[in-house]
């Protein structure tokens, strides 16, 4: 475990009469790239603003290393923030924006000049120093915001959905660039997003949040492969979530069949949620001995790399992603291996996710766009 740099202990925050965080605990290690991931309103921005000092928690404490900073005002904290809409100072040019923090600290002019130029070089904005910030594109403004924050030599950089205002192509470029910058400067990044793909591809550690609570903390691979509950399984990637029963250790019953499993410790005959990722399922002829369950294809969508096939198995609709094609109305068999079956304890989210019976393209779009709304809590 890395040396902790930020610790939140039993934090409670109420905003506008609503309890956003309650008994919130989180430890962030020095030099980590941590992502807070969750739907809008889950409290992730509130966590960030608490670390930044813009929200004073009703209860609990914030620690910076060993030192308690709960009551330290924002301007005295060694953390800097990249705001969602960048918050560049419109009356100052690029140079003066980046120099702002150093001027307040009373640094010498030639040191300021050196640092600003270094920063401009790092974010690929050489020669733009005298431009007004109003004349920059979204991506350029983003880079200035990063340069401005890093010029202040923070120990921790907080990023509040910094890429949400950029278009898809630029967003991808900035993702890898941010990761590179983080590795170059070697400081802790705390990144807030609602985009699971962004979270998985950038982070060392992902913190999945919902309703002001941490649902799971882990590496991107962990949270994808070993989701703790139905919420995490559904929020990160696509999943078929089925009711199952843990017959005994390493043996689970799901969809009317018993499967070997890699999980244990749930007790005997315990009700559980079972996650099967769409890409882990193979389709085989119903007659094949490999077929564990059989169903009727209700929809087939070509996605480029693979087909997305919805299969009705006794009323429960499965999603399958496969390079093999099938036709609507075909009766096909589904093959599973113990590796594909992940067992989770029952939670408040059980039964809410994972059935694709209402799935259609429009629904998928609606979900995508609602997820894109700003997280203003």
């Amino acid at each position: 475990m890395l040396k902790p740099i930020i610790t939140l202990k039993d934090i409670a925050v109420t905003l506008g009469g609503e309890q956003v965080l309650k008994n919130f605990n989180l430890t962030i290690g020095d030099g980590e790239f941590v992502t807070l991931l969750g739907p809008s309103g889950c409290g992730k921005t509130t966590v960030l603003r608490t670390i930044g000092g813009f929200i004073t928690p009703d209860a609990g404490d914030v620690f910076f290393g060993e030192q308690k900073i709960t009551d330290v005002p924002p301007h005295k904290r060694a953390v800097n923030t990249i705001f969602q809409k960048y918050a560049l100072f419109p009356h100052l040019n690029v140079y003066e924006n980046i120099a702002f923090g150093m001027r307040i600290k009373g640094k010498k002019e030639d040191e300021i000049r050196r640092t600003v130029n270094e920063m401009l070089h790092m974010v690929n904005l050489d020669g733009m120093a005298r431009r007004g910030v109003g004349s920059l594109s979204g991506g350029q403004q983003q880079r200035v915001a990063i340069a401005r924050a890093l010029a202040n030599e923070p120990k921790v950089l907080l990023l509040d959905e910094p890429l949400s205002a950029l278009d898809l192509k630029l967003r991808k470029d900035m993702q890898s660039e941010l990761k590179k910058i983080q590795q170059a400067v070697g400081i802790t990044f705390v990144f807030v997003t609602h985009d699971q793909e962004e979270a998985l591809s950038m982070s060392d550690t992902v913190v999945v949040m919902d309703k002001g609570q941490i649902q799971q903390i882990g590496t991107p691979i962990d949270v994808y492969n070993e989701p703790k509950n139905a919420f995490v399984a559904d929020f990160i990637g696509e999943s078929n979530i089925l009711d199952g029963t843990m017959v005994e250790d390493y043996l689970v019953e799901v969809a009317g069949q018993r499967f070997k499993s890699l999980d244990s410790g749930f007790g005997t005959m315990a009700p559980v949620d079972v996650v099967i990722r769409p890409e882990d399922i193979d389709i085989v002829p119903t007659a094949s001995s490999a077929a564990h369950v059989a169903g009727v294809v209700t929809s087939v969508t070509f996605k480029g790399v693979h087909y997305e096939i919805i299969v009705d198995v006794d009323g429960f609709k499965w999603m399958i992603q496969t390079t093999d094609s099938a036709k609507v109305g075909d009766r096909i068999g589904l093959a599973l291996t113990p590796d594909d079956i992940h067992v989770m304890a029952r939670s408040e989210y059980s039964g809410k996710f994972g059935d694709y019976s209402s799935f259609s393209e429009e629904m998928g779009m609606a979900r995508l766009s609602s997820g894109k709304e700003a997280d203003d809590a």
Partner: protein
Amino acid sequence: MKILLKIYTALLFVFLYAPILVLIVFSFNDTQTSSRTQFSGFTLRWYERLFEDRYILEALFNTLLIAVVSAVCATVLGTLAAVGINRLKKLPRRVMMNITNFPMVNPEIVTGVSMMLLFVAATGLFGGKNLGMWTLIIAHITFCLPYVILSVLPKLRQMNPNLYEAAQDLGCPPIPAFFKVVLPEIMPGIITGMIMAFTLSIDDFVISYFTSGTTQTLPIYIYTMTRRRISPEINALSTVLFVCIMALLILINVRQSKAEKEQREKGDAR
């Protein structure tokens, strides 16, 4: 149809400007009988008289003094108030906005009369001087305040609220952060508010009339002049004021369009 609209527009502007034009023309009218209908020769006599008139000059001085003092006070007080109101929660903000809007919808004469009652009561209670300069300044600050607040508030609302936080985030304590970041952002609103306060103060008659005691301001002096009915000096005064205002407005307009042009060029540079 088009021509009809043009004629209509032209007539309306004639309606708006003809009286002013008449005033100006007759300020140069050389006549002994002070006839206001016949133009009997060019003279600058009324202008000479105007600038020799001790009372007018004193009234002018008073007006400018009151306008400067009350515009500055109203701007400072109003900007602070706007910043405060902007941060209030919904309900108290509503209350404050209603108080702010009240003097703007209340008939001026009622505002004037009510303040007169207050000042008379105050001099009765605390002794003190009669109504005059100080009551005028208080009254002017009061009726200018809402205009300042209403021109600053929209700028505060337009501002990205993260700006103030960003400055603090970069190590700037709250109060310097306000001056370094928030103030430059809302400056246009503050300046508009100050100009409005200044012109409103210079122009005010009704409220001044009830709160001035024996102190003369220019509008009050104009009022006493109109009561004497025939005095071409008024025409001269009108002309001088009109020319000053025109010059000021043209200046502001030129500056504005220049700034806009620069903005546009900056935008094109992308």
